[in-house]
């Protein structure tokens, strides 16, 4: 493959990915024609409300969704290799070694009946054919690298004796163990204490830079991705509504949905007791998505055309910036700065 050795270039290409689930009530289109790219060594923030399809998108990129009742179309290229045509056995060679994942809830994502050491060393033994001794040594180094004190002692412990933050560090160590080229982090801090969230995000960012690794950081919090990602894709009801380089999306927000999300982030410089803006209503059912723009029923700027015709992804004036709106927001909305606090 070309681009295998160079640092720049495209690492992950997702082309027109769509995922639908057969349910007793009908077909649910959880992901609807998503295309995106992650550059080598760069971080993409995937932002959206609960139920917007972020997790399904991430798992379908990894091909970790169950096969039965799930229909996936589109293409996913990792390093130029089409993952969608790979056999389960070929995927196993990719999982954990080139492509790995950090899950949302560290309280449930570690096996309660296996020792930490075994769970960390497992990938090493699987993909690197390491001996018991070598994998143990490397596991200690990995745990140390993710900021776990007394790693040698932790190896012999079971997950229930560790705090949530420590457990998430362990799952990050597992994900990083075989030096993946791409890390998918699915809301890695949502289940953690607020005080720990920053530490975990810092750790991810630090490791991503140190390893020159691509990362997809999934979150419902724009504050999380503001300073930690190079690009952003905002999802709503299974579709991307706005994407582009992070500074551009923040400084030249075009989609009313992104704008509304930004307004609903609590800010330090808000006067005390001021009301927090919220987006009224709920995301639409993906069983019968509204025709036209899916955000139209909740959008304050919606006009007649919005509920009739689905706006296409349109390029903005800045390079790489795409948005899906007939009547985009033009005023620069919220400036990108560190005043966006990170909430849960």
């Amino acid at each position: 493959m070309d681009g295998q050795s160079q640092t720049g270039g495209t690492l992950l290409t997702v082309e027109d990915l769509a995922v639908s689930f057969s349910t007793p009530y009908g077909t649910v289109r959880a992901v609807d024609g998503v295309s995106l790219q992650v550059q080598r060594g760069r971080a993409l923030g995937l932002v959206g409300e609960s139920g917007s399809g972020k997790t399904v998108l991430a798992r379908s990129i990894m091909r970790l969704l169950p096969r039965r009742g799930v229909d996936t179309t589109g293409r996913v290229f990792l390093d130029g290799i089409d993952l969608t045509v790979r056999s389960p056995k070929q995927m196993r060679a990719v999982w954990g070694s080139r492509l790995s994942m950090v899950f949302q809830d560290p309280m449930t994502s570690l096996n309660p009946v296996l020792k930490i050491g075994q769970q960390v060393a497992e990938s090493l033994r699987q993909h690197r054919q390491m001996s018991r001794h070598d994998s143990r040594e490397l596991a200690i180094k990995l745990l140390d690298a993710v900021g776990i004190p007394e790693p040698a002692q932790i190896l012999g412990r079971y997950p229930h004796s560790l705090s949530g933050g420590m457990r998430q560090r362990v799952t990050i160590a597992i994900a990083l163990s075989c030096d993946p080229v791409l890390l998918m982090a699915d809301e890695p801090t949502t289940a953690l204490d607020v005080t720990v969230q920053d530490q975990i995000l810092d750790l991810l960012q630090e490791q991503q830079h140190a390893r020159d690794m691509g990362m997809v950081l999934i979150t419902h919090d724009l504050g999380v991705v503001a300073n930690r990602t190079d690009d952003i894709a905002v999802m709503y009801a299974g579709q991307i509504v706005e994407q582009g380089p992070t500074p551009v999306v923040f400084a030249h927000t075009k989609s009313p949905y992104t704008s509304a999300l930004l307004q609903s982030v609590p800010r330090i410089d808000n006067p005390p007791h001021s009301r927090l803006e919220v987006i009224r209503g709920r995301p639409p059912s993906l069983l019968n998505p509204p025709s036209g723009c899916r955000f139209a029923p909740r959008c304050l700027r919606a006009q007649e055309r919005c509920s009739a015709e689905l706006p296409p992804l349109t390029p903005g004036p800045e390079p790489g910036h795409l948005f899906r709106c007939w009547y985009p927001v033009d005023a620069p909305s919220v400036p990108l700065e560190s005043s966006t606090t990170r909430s849960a």
Partner: protein
Amino acid sequence: MVRNALLGMIIKRLGRLVVLMFLVTLATTWMLNLVPGSPAVILAGPSATPSVIAAINKKYGFNESVLVQYWHWLSRVFHGDLGRSYQTQQTVTQALSQRVPVSLELTIMAGLIALIIAVPTALYTGYRAGSFADRVVDGVTSSFISIPGFLAGILLAYLLAVKVHVFPAIGWQSLSKNPARNFRTAVLPVVSLSLPLIAIFQRVLRADVIATLQQDYILLARSKGLPTWKILFRHALKPSSFSLLTIAGVAIGGLIGNAVIIEQVYSLPGLGSLLVSSILSKDLVMVQAVIAIIALVYLVLNLLVDIAYTALDPRVAAQ
């Protein structure tokens, strides 16, 4: 710390086991007194005179109160004397030393074979729930459960011993005397006993495996690129085994005394048939001993199950 907690648990359970053994044997003595009909009448035969019956009653203490009878029995047991059968005059110890090994052998082999077959089958059918293979296994296990044990026993004996002379249907030899012969005669009864166990174990474990496979840590294990068999055996089996373990303790323990029908079909000298014949002939001292043995096996087995819980789940040990 964990090891000490485990040791403390075992000591506590052993104490409870002793108390339970006292209660079980006392209850047996009491229940046997409630059974209608006098053992002395049966012993003396239909034509015995009242004076003979009175003499027998006096000799064996049948007229004493339950507590006194129990006390007599207990004090003899502590001197290593389990008594002598009223019927055959054989000592109970001798009878047990012939019967217990047979029943233990059948029980252990049937339990092991059931686990060896049920565990991989349950893991596979749980992993492929709803598939053709799963439905076939479901049908087979349904029939294993619904076919009565004696029918399966007779059927197997007819097909494999009478029609095709693969295994003998009768002619049990003890393991110490003739191991090869013993093994050949054990096959059919062990298979008959293990069929319903296989079905129960497979069903219980399959249901728990399906639930376990939904867990996040299984998805994480998949995202590590582990092969399916490692995910099933290493990641899914242990957390899914709790119900199986509980059921296995009860079901395997049940075999020791409840294998009467299979013992009859294959004319095996086991505990079950000894118990039934002793009850029918009001051979109280024999019944007492057999029930004590059965209770002991049950209690020990369930103690082992409790110990296994802590081995399965570190959180149990930590409590």
